[in-house]
């Protein structure tokens, strides 16, 4: 058993456990923390492959920036604890399907991979020796990046520009909407008030308390879940 193999097992196991945690932990913040664990474990896996640069960049980019933004959004929106009824609704709708899909996926994966002699396929050209010969991780990587992979590198910048332009356009509020609440557009506000009035007409609740009441229509076909959730945010 080589050191690399041990590292692989340790980090692979933590990555899997953390990934499961991401899905099954009830609190979104705990899920995000678990995600940090998973991403850091992947950095460890890179380390075991002697890909130091990739490993460190993985930590900087994913744990240092991406998950921080996740946490940031979760905290700002204040979705600390989801309404248990909503959660159940979600579970009832999706769980059987998700479970079925998972079983098929994992089964297929196991069947395919067990039929193959390890190590699978062919090994890549960039072995550790080749990298060391080129002068280490950073040099080898930069050389490949700026020669063979130049076009994909440049296209990535286009992708980022497109994403930024799109993000800014969608996020920038038009002036007359300012102060109407987070994510509460006139259209949505109208829908919510209609919903509330309808409920009031049925004598279910007082329109004044509508936002606190968190009324969720148990009918899975209606959009009530979405509206209920957004009204909560709109208030904050």
């Amino acid at each position, binding site marked *: 058993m080589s050191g690399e193999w041990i590292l692989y097992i340790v980090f692979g196991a933590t990555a899997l456990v953390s990934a499961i945690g991401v899905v099954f932990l009830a609190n979104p913040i705990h899920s995000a923390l678990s995600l940090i664990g998973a991403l850091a474990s992947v950095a460890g896996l890179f380390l075991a492959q002697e890909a130091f640069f990739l490993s460190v960049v993985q930590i900087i980019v994913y744990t240092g920036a991406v998950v921080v933004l996740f946490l940031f959004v979760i905290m700002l929106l204040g979705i600390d604890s989801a309404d248990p009824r909503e959660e159940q609704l979600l579970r009832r709708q999706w769980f059987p399907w998700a479970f079925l899909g998972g079983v098929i996926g994992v089964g*297929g*994966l196991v*069947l*395919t*991979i067990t*039929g*193959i*002699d390890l190590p*699978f*396929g*062919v*090994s*890549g*050209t960039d072995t550790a020796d080749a990298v060391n010969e080129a*002068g280490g991780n950073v*040099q080898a990587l*930069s*050389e490949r990046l*700026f*020669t*063979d*992979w*130049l*076009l*994909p590198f440049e*296209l*990535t910048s*286009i*992708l980022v*520009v*497109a*994403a930024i*332009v*799109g*993000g*800014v*356009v*969608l996020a920038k509020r*038009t002036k007359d*909407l300012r102060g109407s609440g987070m994510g509460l*557009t*006139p*259209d*949505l506000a109208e*829908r919510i008030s209609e919903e509330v009035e309808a409920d009031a007409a049925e004598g279910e609740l007082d329109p004044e308390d509508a936002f606190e009441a968190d009324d969720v229509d148990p009918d899975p076909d209606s959009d009530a879940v979405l509206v209920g959730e957004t009204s909560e945010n709109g208030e904050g």
Partner: protein
Amino acid sequence: MSVLAQAIPAPQTDYTTIIPELIVLGTGLLIVLMLAIRRFSNIGWYALIAALGFAAAGIVAYVDLWPEVTDGAATYAFSGMVAADGFSTFVVILSCVAGVLAVLLANSYLKREGLDKAEYFALLLFSAAGVQFMAMANNLVMVFLALEILSVCLYVLSAWNRDKFASQEAGMKYLLLGAYTSAIMLFGISFLYGGTGTLNIAALAQFFARNVLENQGLVFLGMALVVVGLAFKIAAVPFHMWAPDVYQGAPAPVVGYMAAAAKIAAFAALFRILFLGLSAMEVDWKPLLWGLAILSMIVGSLLALVQSDVKRMMAYSSISHAGFIAIGVAAASAEGMSGALFYLVTYTFMIAGAFAVIDCIGRKDEQYTKYEDYRGLFAREPLLAAILTFFLFALAGIPGTSGFVAKFVVFEGAAEGGQWALIGIGTVAAVIALFFYLRLIVLMYMQDSTERPDLAETRARVAAGPAVVLAVTVAATVLLGILPQGLLDMAGQAVFAL
């Protein structure tokens, strides 16, 4: 300093092969830059710039590249990242045409809805560049990157009418599901790399020519996952779930472009990866495509029958069209693919024209898209109703329109491969499709619009942009229906060298 002494070799940069893409991207960046410096109050200027950019790119591709690429074999550029051949150049020209149509449609829409932000055109240009790079990609990473560029732009465009709940919903659904399938596709790409040790599509073919795999499991899984990722983009059943909601919620001009662009890109990539890269695995991927084609045609047509919203119906119709195009790819022959290319051209015109009409009839906020709103349309808007009728007939594949020729050439490709079952099912689906198009048409000619005084009062306004689009698309649909030979030859040339 010591490290720099061993300077790296200069990258292989053959800008001439990607001139159209550079023009399109450059125009997009120019618009973004102009917006950063000073905003013109009239976005018409930006529309003009975008349209000129598309036109220039298309013309350069046709005049400069097309004669070159149809003569000989593919030229690989940027260290084998992109391949310039007839196929890719054909798609580049087509995407430029789609882009011009989209710009013309969007200008008046954006002004009418008060959504006039010129970033729209920049995103349109970027997304078209995504389509073009997807067709040219000779590397799986390039395929993925181009797909992402296209997708990100389409997510944003779908949610463009952000004050409208349905549009937000469309963007959100498209984004979440799209991101998920992108991950699946990336997973597939990594499996392919693990199994073959290369990401280069041409090298994949060489790998299979030199090696016989004892167990194809890993490569098969990778191929299947890549197909799933692309099938999502073309909205093939069972990966179509997003399409109805997105088509219904997104602005009509966006849908008119998106329906065509996403299909063009995904089919191009599908063809390149499967036919050129994994041709050795033909027996494995053919059944997958058959399945997708059959399910899409049947399910799309059947579900379109029961819709009550025109945009939603068009979504299911586009799903069934995806099935028809998939027949061409599944034929796994140059004939089949040239048929599919022809189909994509006709579809681009038809869908742009149809959504131009839907946009005009929908008016502000696209409030009139229900079947109820189309009842008696002919009495109120004879011209628009007639044009829409024409497009619906073309989509259904009535002889004399380009839709008929398109279905015919696709079936022809399948027939040469002896896939009669596929043709049989396709014919049945086409008949079902005729029914749901007819249902709307019949509704339009019913004479009881008296119940809708709100519609009777005002007439739908057809702005200059949509008017031009309508004229062009009607002309193209008629022309390609009567004299399809020129384009058929071009499509044949496009795939000939492959």
